[in-house]
């Protein structure tokens, strides 16, 4: 029997085996599918959150606020100072009046809050638009320190603090995907192992005959390995299908809202999807290998079964 014949035979036997024990097989498929699905959900959220953080970061600015008593010359000087940094794409001075007009435009109902002040209640500021990819944390920290030292500058406001916190959340989600998904996947491997062990146990009479008439271990185990791999693959495909369905449902439900963009603006890329299915297949194969154990050195005992029933 050549390899192609053997593989075809393994597949045929595995499919027959799956069909015969479809209830237990379904259990195995579902545990694998569920663990991969859960990992997939965590991945989906972390990827969406991650890309949102990236987007926010690219849009985010640094605001340098001036002292209330600063004048137009101070503003121009600070803006120049900032713009001289190589990584600053633009530094736009915002006059106190402009700030006030913008506030009123944005919050008309609160316009009277700005009435009756001696000075402009909103300080002048410089909106810094960094070339984010060109900045690293140290450069930025050094720069903000320098700016704060300028007597006309009252404070520097950097969105990056909370963006960094969001980033921590994304990383944690990714870790969770790995840990929870990994733990569940291990459970799934053991489930598959018991399902295959059961199948092998039900066939032990036939396995004994196969051994005694001269079947190799490869030939005997092949169908079971194929069965585990098929179960794992089906679980992986099921997980991908469930992920796609959930994704579409979430998009329908939450659309462009915050929650929608948090979990459902971007689906897992094809590589990840293939990886999920491959992970399922590998888990199934691992379960089968685990269940059949190692070959006993003493084939006389091996002839009687796979050790598990001895």
């Amino acid at each position, binding site marked *: *029997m050549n390899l192609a014949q053997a593989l075809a035979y393994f597949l045929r036997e595995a499919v027959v085996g799956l069909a015969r024990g479809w209830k237990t097989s379904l259990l195995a498929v579902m545990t694998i599918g569920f663990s991969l699905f859960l990992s997939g959900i965590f991945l989906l959220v972390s990827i969406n959150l991650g890309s949102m953080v990236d987007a926010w970061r690219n849009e985010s600015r640094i605001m340098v606020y001036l002292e209330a008593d600063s004048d137009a010359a101070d503003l121009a000087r600070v803006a120049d100072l900032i713009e001289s940094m190589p990584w600053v794409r633009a530094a736009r001075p915002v006059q106190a009046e402009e700030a006030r007009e913008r506030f009123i435009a944005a919050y008309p109902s609160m316009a009277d809050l700005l009435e009756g002040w001696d000075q402009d209640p909103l300080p002048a500021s410089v909106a810094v638009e960094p070339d984010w990819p060109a900045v690293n944390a140290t450069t930025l920290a050094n720069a903000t320190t320098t700016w704060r030292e300028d007597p006309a500058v009252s404070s520097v406001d950097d969105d990056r603090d909370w963006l960094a916190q969001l980033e921590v959340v994304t990383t944690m989600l990714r870790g969770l995907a790995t840990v929870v998904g990994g733990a569940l996947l291990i459970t799934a491997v053991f489930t598959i192992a018991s399902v295959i062990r059961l199948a092998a146990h039900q066939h032990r009479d036939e396995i*004994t005959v*196969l051994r*005694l*008439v*001269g079947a190799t271990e490869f030939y005997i185990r092949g169908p079971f390995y194929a069965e585990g791999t098929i179960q794992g693959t089906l679980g992986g495909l099921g997980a991908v299908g469930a992920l796609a369905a959930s994704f579409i449902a979430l998009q329908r439900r939450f659309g462009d809202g915050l929650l929608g963009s948090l979990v459902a603006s971007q689906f897992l890329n094809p590589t990840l999807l293939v990886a999920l299915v491959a992970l399922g297949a590998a888990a199934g194969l691992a379960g089968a290998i685990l269940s059949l154990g190692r070959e006993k050195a003493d*084939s006389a005992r091996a002839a009687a079964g796979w050790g598990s029933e001895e």
Partner: protein
Amino acid sequence: MIELYHVSKRYPGGQIGLSDVSLSIPRGQMVFLTGASGSGKSTFLKMIYREEVPTEGQILVNGRNLAALPAKKIPYLRRTIGVVFQEFRLIARKTVFENISYLPRILGMDSARQRKLAYDTLRRVGLAHRINAFPLSLSGGERQRVAIARALINEPEILLADEPTGNLDPELSEEILHLLLEVNLRGTTVILATHDRALIDRVGHRVLTLDQGKLAEDRELPPGIVPNMRAGAASAPGGDAAPEPDAALESDAAPGPTTALPAEAGGTS
């Protein structure tokens, strides 16, 4: 060629399977293996196809030392040995065809050839019409013949038959015997374990007698009957060999030794 050198087998529970057996069976010989129940006949056969390994001594099959045979090579040894198991080992879920076609399938024969081979082999044991039956729907004797067909299917170099006539009526066992003799004539070494002294006396050839694991006797009886396929249980033209009644041996199945004439009612089963 099967050679045993001081072979002993002690089972984990302490039972003696074989005890210091040395002998040699040349290629193509017809050998009967007899002895009381529990004397080690099955153990002897199991060691040759390496279902059991000796606790002491060496077994060589066609020059290969079984103890030194790596696990990976065992399947290839077994493919050259046909075994009729005492307990048949037929798979109830599988048809007769599937039961006897394990080896052809392992060898990668295409299904048409498997089918033809199965059919031809079943015809030799008179069961061609039951090719699609399941073992549970067969009589004891039919199951036995399926087990024989499975052992014969790939023309083994060595045929080990453990009580192959145990469940058969005299007429059928005679037919099976003819079949095995015919297989032997084609060059296969045949070792047949049986309680049936009458059968042995009638057929002759080499007879090994085991007693509590020991080789108590190894003798050559003049061939009694020669295989005659078509004649069924009828004739015994091979001469009038007159095996003397063998007092030394008890027999728990056959009603005592008989002289070598066919169709006596000396029941097996």
